[in-house]
């Protein structure tokens, strides 16, 4: 969570795990094409979507993220051939478990964004940021100590 002192307006903190080969390049392309995406999205570059350990996602929430999104190459296009197929199963099960524990399922998302899809990147991030803003602050998973 961040509070913009001037506007006194709450802004969501969104963590996006982007794989180096597609989604991160997609984000780059969005930038060079001057397509905007919300500044509240903090991108963490990972070598492949299957590098994302479930603990990363929980840690992000613990440290105050209001939403976490993971982006990777389209299934079939992974730089390491099959990484995102494994990641897909993992994230499905993890999100389902978070939902089962009563954490709002809209706070988690997976999107496949290729290096050529700067536009999609910007659309997805704007949409996700909108959803999270509507949901408001994440109070269920945060560690209060991290918010001081």
């Amino acid at each position, binding site marked *: 969570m961040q509070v913009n002192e001037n506007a006194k307006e709450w802004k969501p903190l969104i963590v996006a795990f982007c794989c180096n080969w597609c989604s991160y390049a997609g984000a780059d392309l969005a930038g060079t094409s001057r397509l905007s995406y919300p500044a509240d999205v903090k991108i963490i570059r990972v070598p492949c979507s299957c590098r994302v350990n479930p603990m990363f996602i929980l840690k992000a929430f613990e440290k105050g993220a209001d939403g976490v999104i993971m982006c990777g190459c389209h299934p079939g296009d992974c730089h390491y051939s099959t990484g995102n197929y494994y990641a897909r199963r993992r994230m*499905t099960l993890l999100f389902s478990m978070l939902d089962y524990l009563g954490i709002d*399922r809209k706070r988690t*998302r*997976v999107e496949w964004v290729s290096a050529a899809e700067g536009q999609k990147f910007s659309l997805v991030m704007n949409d996700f940021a909108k959803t999270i803003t509507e949901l408001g602050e994440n109070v269920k998973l945060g*560690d209060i*100590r991290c918010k001081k």
Partner: protein
Amino acid sequence: MQKVRGLVIKRAGELLSDGTVTRVLGYKCGDFFYDVTPAFFESADQLSDLEYGSFCGANLSKYLINACKDQKEGKILVLLKPCDTYSFNQLLTEHRIDRDKIYVIGVGCKGMLDIEKLKAMGFKGITKVLDNGDELDIKTIYGDKKCKRADALLEKCVCCKGKDFKAFDEVIDVEEPGEKGADRFEGVALLENMTSEERFAFWNNELSKCIRCNACRNVCPACSCMKCVFDNPVSGAAGKVNSNSFEEKMFHIIRAFHVAGRCTDCGECSRVCPQGIPLHLLNRKFIKDIDELYGDYQAGEEVGSRAPLVNFTFDDAEPSIVHERGNE
């Protein structure tokens, strides 16, 4: 089960004296008659202490990991109930134990009892529990009581996987082959049908009881990492005891996730939890999801099967399926 006990002691004695095995991994009575603990026996005369009765819920397969490391020559005899053989197979699949060093005697089982359930039914000062078919004769210092056997079963035995042995060298069984137990996903489905707020309140209440004694992890045959992330102070996740409500959730989510697809649903975690947290509801959620999304899979059913989380198909469901189904 007294009969099985007699036969096991006799057979184990023979195998020890002819040198087939050098020690026996079985059960022994602790301070109370219901407090039965795993134990090694190294000679035929020690075997008189070997116990096999209605309180032998413990799954001995995990003890084989360390035992195999110490075993220089000869074999270890181990007693496995039908459900324990699943964990045994899973450990073989993961190369944690050495089949050549182990001699498995499959021991018949008609469901193990949960002393906590008996206590919760209001029986105080229990001195002995006698098995009487479908009924239990409970001797207490306040006189004799009775109750239905089915009401006092361990959670894992209520949902028994069936009486087939998935691994054995020989079987000692005198019981009639029983039936499978109740539907194990009932509890999960009940929670799934609640609203998100109700689920959150339920788990907040349950998981906040956790004292991070790590018993659930230590007993689990699927949790056998040499170094656990929750023991590593630099991982930033080794927090103990209620320092905040998130940490214990993290522990349980990660633990359940780590064993997802490898958990045989042996039920040991729920059995040992001193706080009575229904941990099986977490594991069975993963099992249910895996069955629904990726096809039925029972860990430990056969040696060498590929766990669902280290496998994939090209047309697996997208994670967005979570958003599309179930209750908000």
